[in-house]
């Protein structure tokens, strides 16, 4: 009984490892999530490098050649994180922060930037894709390019250079009823802005969802192309340390972390080999006892032995 439970647990562990390998996380803005809310398409199109710790930005010798993208942050920024980003900007780096209802304001406030995400959804009942919560924003260009937002918001601030505004028909839906009420701010509202910081620059976008797989080329919008142009020739880095993680992703990461430790990896291998050996041995033991006896006593009559066996089994 105990042995069978152990075997079952071990097999489950193996099964979980296989599931973790083949079933990617479905977290919002995850660069390894290939479903509609992930960033795999964007990540492969700009060759994104994930950054697990913002302090790593300090190690970059030529910050001016890099863009750090913080898309849809959901976890709080520590003072070390903020200092690392500030240092990166001082050295000429480019920060692209795209957020709506996350923790982006905490970073902007920490960096001393006079800009904030409103935190209420932006609605446009006219310039939109299918639904008023998916507004379209004109970003200019020779061919009149548009960005498609998906439950985005707007940016407020005084010392900003506005790069894109929503239409004059848009408004902030403070009470989430989908209709414009008298106290709700109306468009044009800033949805993309830039501000200089040190030798670097911050680009603020009021919707992280413009980069998700399902929004890159939707409704004639140029979300993907626009993001590529913002990055330009710089190396693109993506902060994954502040993404909100589901328990599955956390467990998956922990598992991969453990498997990266040689002792664990080899230990698991050892256990599996032992298990395989044990199964082989058990199977050998389960060979017909008559065969075993006949190996040892080839002169005995197999028929008599068989009869004896049957009789004993009928006792």
């Amino acid at each position, binding site marked *: *009984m105990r042995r*069978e*439970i152990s*075997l*079952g*647990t071990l*097999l*489950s562990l193996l*099964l*979980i490892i296989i*599931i973790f390998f083949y*079933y990617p996380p*479905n*977290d*919002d803005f995850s660069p390894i999530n290939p479903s*509609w*809310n992930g960033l795999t398409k964007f990540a492969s199109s700009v060759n994104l490098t994930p950054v697990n710790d913002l302090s790593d930005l300090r190690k970059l010798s030529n910050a001016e050649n890099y863009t750090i993208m913080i898309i*849809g942050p*959901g976890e709080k920024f520590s003072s070390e994180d903020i200092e690392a980003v500030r240092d990166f900007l001082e050295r000429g780096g480019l920060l692209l922060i795209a957020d*709506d*209802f996350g923790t982006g304001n905490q970073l902007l406030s920490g960096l001393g930037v006079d800009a904030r995400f409103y935190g209420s959804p932006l609605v446009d*009942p*006219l310039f*939109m*894709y*299918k*639904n008023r*919560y998916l507004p*379209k924003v*004109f970003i200019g260009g020779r061919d*009149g390019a*548009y960005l498609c937002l998906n*439950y985005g918001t707007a940016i407020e601030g005084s010392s900003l250079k506005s790069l894109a505004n929503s239409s*004059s028909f848009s408004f902030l839906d403070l009470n*989430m009823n989908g209709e414009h009420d008298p106290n709700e701010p109306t468009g044009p509202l800033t949805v993309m802005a830039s501000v200089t910081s040190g030798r670097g620059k911050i680009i603020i976008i009021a919707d992280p969802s413009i980069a998700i797989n*399902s929004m890159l080329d939707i*409704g004639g919008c140029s979300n993907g192309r626009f993001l590529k142009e913002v990055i330009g020739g710089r190396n693109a880095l993506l902060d994954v340390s502040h993404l*909100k*993680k*589901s*328990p*599955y992703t956390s467990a998956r990461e922990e598992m991969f972390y453990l498997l990266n430790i*040689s*002792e664990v990896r*080899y230990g698991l291998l*050892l256990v599996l*080999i032992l298990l395989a*050996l044990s199964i082989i041995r058990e199977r050998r*033991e389960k060979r017909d*006892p*008559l065969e075993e*006896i006949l*190996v*040892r006593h080839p002169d005995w009559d197999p028929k008599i*032995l068989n009869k*004896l*066996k049957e009789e*004993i*089994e009928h*006792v």
Partner: protein
Amino acid sequence: MRISLLVVAFIALASIAIASVGAGIEIPRHVNPVEVSEENPLSQSQFLSAFYEEVLRLTGVSYYSNATSLVRNSKEVYLPSSIRYLIERFNGLLMQEIEHLNLTDSEINITLNLLREGNFKEAYKYLNKAILKLNEANITRNELLDAYKEIRRRLGVNIANLNEIDLLIKNRSLSLKELKGKLRGESAVPTDISLELPKRVWVGSQLTVKGVLTTINGDPIPSEKVIFKLGNITKTFVTDGNGIYRGEIKVPYIYRPNITAVAEYLPEKYLGKFESSRVNRTLEVLYIQSNIYASLNASSAVPGSHVMIRGHASPSGQVVVVRAFGLVKRIRSDEGVFHLPLEIPSVKGGYYDIILRIEPNGTISPSERVLYLMVYRKQLNLSIESPPFIIGGLNFTVKGRISGGNSSVPCRVIIDAFGEERSLVANGSFAFRLKSPLIGLVGPKNITITVEPLLPNYEVASHLVRTYYIDWIGPLAITLLVTISILRLRRERVRIMEPTPIPSVPQKIRIRRSSLRDPFARLYFSAVNMIERSLGMKMRAHYTLREYAEKVGRRLGNASFFFNRLTLLYEAYLYGGMKSGLEKAKGYYSVLKKVLKL
């Protein structure tokens, strides 16, 4: 096995449950655009109405391009495909209408300009074009009204200021009528304008402008504006009762040999009565030309060294501004000669510009000269020795030599191996004694050595060494495992081949313990299980009851007596059918159990 599968199923279900739990935030950060519901077009009517009212407001104030771009943007207005064609048709007609009105305005403006110039023939031509365009606008307006009725019916759009178009057409029609009246039977009188100016002027000086505006017959034209342009400066003068205009203008600091002055008359008050006229003059501009000559004492230099700039500037006493390597220096050229020592900063190798300039100063013109200096750094020779293989957890040494030509150069040497960075200052040769990590991924590894010379005239050198890292724990564990497995398998084989004594009775049949219903057999095998668990000695399939009792007897010690008795009683029952020994056997079993538990 069934229990194993149950455990697997339970853990799999738990994993799926965990996987399906998402991070919960009150407002959704996004929705799947494929699954999102379509907007009801009727809910958009008030916004569409406001949108078209804005377009017509812009058209009404002749901001045609803004109105057009707004209509063009309306392709981004989302509408279900079943009614989209209605809006597209309406937009197309609206664009057409705006274009007709725009062209009508353009033709009217051209007609007015031609009328000012007295070109009546051409003015007539453009007037007719304007009339034609306005007629087209009128026709399009009717179609537009039909399309509007349809979008009002289907989408509930209500454009309050649609009559703006009617007003525009009416206004343009009146303007055209007025122009037609002016052109009918009128002819303009040619005019003449004169301009008196000196032939030469100094830069920055005050220039007096004077001239007369008359008809071709010599009659003065009073109170009319004359536009005067000198270079990029424009001034307007008004003629007096004798047709004379006069005024003053400052000559710009342009430091060019010539400047053009133009006086032009464009009728305003007497539009249609007088023709326009124009006169121009070229004036020679006077200024003092500055000159600068300079040279470097060397065409190339290394960082940290000095070069001397020597030169001559005229007129003497001018300040020469020197711009080099991002720095600006000023030097006065006393008696026209200047010397400036320049230290080469620590910059990368390449050609650099040294710009010398005399800034413009009143009547003195600017001048500039560019000198080129090649900055170079000497190359360091670097040779590295490192082991081809590195075993995990052991020390290894990376050695090297640095030389700059024939001499040794003090340098800071930085080594980056296995994610660890170390540095030292070396003069000629260096050695790093490092320890490799105990565990890690087996495979080729890079070790980077960067040499930063402490003298500015040498180039930074970098060297990449490839070595092979072996993590000994992994291979050792696998080797041990394989060895143990082989040894165990071999021992098994030897045991099978051992000769065993032939028993008198063939009692070697194994009974399946799991299917025991017989109480005697169950009792015996409970005892066997107990011994197996206690001693770890399994009852193999080919053992007879006695063989097993013998095997375990030595290790059971005193307890072997009870097990032997139990075995004999079971044998008697199994082969002799003696059931009476069961109670005795139970007694032996309970004693055995107590002894083994102790």
